[in-house]
Each structure stands twice: as structure tokens, then as C-alpha cells.
């Protein structure tokens, strides 16, 4: 049973190659059925580029045909994009043209969330009403 599902998926992928991603969407196919990338595989691929890579999370990116791999290298966390062919990767920003939004930045902010309670505020400079609903902390340099 599983085997025939696999063959069916492979056939679909052959008929609608990655390049024509619209084919997927209009046919309502779920890319993750045909394409998988697990932790070990992602590490194997990316360690060619970043020998100390740690993969923290893998998900399908908003751009069809790319995985978003959240990883850590050289003490820094970032997003790597890997294509379905597993031959190409890029580091950079994915932009939503319609929304004029940097989707990579938004994802990174989401993934890198910090615990705000560990930031002491009693010594901070306060701009606005200290009892306001939204408390936004700004790290700034006077120069």
C-alpha cells in the first residue's frame, strides 16, 4: 500500500516538476507528500558548507520548492533555504512581493523569540506612559 502511494507521488512529481509549482497548487497536491527532508539529511547536506551546522527546525518555506532550514553555525542562528533537488541552498531574504515584507526576517524573529522577563527595565530610559499596554524594549547605541 505504502509503496503504491510512494510510486503515485513520484509520478505526480514527474508530471509536475518543481519548476512548475503552480501545477501543485492548482491540483491541490501537498508538496510534503512527495518531498521530505529530515534532520540527518539536512545536516549532511549543509555540513559541506558549514561544518559545525546544527539543524534546529525544518519546514516547508512559503516559496514552493524550497525548505526552510533553521540552523546554527559559528554561534549564530539563521535560516537556510534548500531546494527540492537538494542540490542548491541559499542564505538570504525571501520577500513577499505583494506584501512588501521580508518573510525571512519575520520567521527569524518568530524562531529566535527571547524571554522578555530576563530584561531588567528599572534602569532603562522610559519614553511614553510606563503603564501603557504595549511595552517595547529598544536596544540602542548613543553613537
Amino acid at each position: 500500500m505504502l509503496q503504491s502511494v510512494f510510486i503515485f507521488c513520484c509520478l505526480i512529481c514527474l508530471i509536475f516538476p518543481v519548476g512548475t509549482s503552480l501545477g501543485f497548487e492548482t491540483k491541490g497536491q501537498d508538496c510534503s507528500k512527495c518531498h521530505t527532508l529530515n534532520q540527518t539529511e539536512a545536516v549532511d547536506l549543509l555540513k559541506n558548507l558549514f561544518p559545525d551546522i546544527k539543524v534546529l527546525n525544518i519546514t516547508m518555506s512559503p516559496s514552493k520548492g524550497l525548505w526552510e532550514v533553521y540552523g546554527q553555525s559559528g554561534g549564530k542562528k539563521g535560516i537556510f533555504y534548500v531546494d527540492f533537488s537538494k542540490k542548491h541552498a541559499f542564505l538570504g531574504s525571501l520577500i513577499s512581493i505583494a506584501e512588501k515584507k521580508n518573510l525571512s526576517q519575520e520567521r527569524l524573529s518568530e524562531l529566535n523569540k527571547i524571554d522578555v522577563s530576563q530584561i531588567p527595565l528599572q534602569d532603562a530610559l522610559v519614553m511614553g506612559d510606563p503603564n501603557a499596554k504595549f511595552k517595547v524594549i529598544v536596544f540602542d547605541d548613543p553613537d
Partner: protein
Amino acid sequence: MKKTIEERKDIVFYVKLYPLKIHPEAYEKSKAIVCEKSLALLEAAHEKKPLPKPSCETTVIDENIKLAEKLGITSLPSIVLPDGRVFPGYRDAKSLIGLLGN
């Protein structure tokens, strides 16, 4: 920031000074500002006006540096939203409100 708090009374900014090593004078300036707890001095610093010498001894700035490094904050300014999301660079009132929701 000024414009944002004028537009939105429900937003308050807490400014933490984090002098970067590439700005050698920023450390002393940060101390001077923190000693006086003065937004006016911060504004003066941004306008490249000379600042008085720090009027107190304080470890606040050293603690801020340690904290920012621990949190992985590298670019300045960086904003931290109430839910813990960190964004590099300052945002104008409209896009900040968009990020905060409602």
C-alpha cells in the same frame, strides 16, 4: 519613537543602552545618559552634540552589554516586542503597530 508614542498612547518604549565596541566613545556617553536617566541627553547624543562626563559610577551599561550578547542582539537599534520577537532596525509607527497587532 516620539511619533509612535504621540500616535499611540498604549505604547511605551524602554530604551536599553548598548554601546558597540566599534564606537569607542559610546560607552562613556551611555554611562552619562544612564546616570542622569535623561532622554534629552540621548537625543543630544544622536544629534552628535557633546555630552557631559558621567556623573556616577554604574554597572548598568556593562550589564546591558552582557545581556545583549547573551540574547544574540547584534545590530542596533533592535526592538524587542512584548511577545519576545526581536527585529533589527527601527520601525516607523505604522509598521510597528502592524507587528504589535490591533
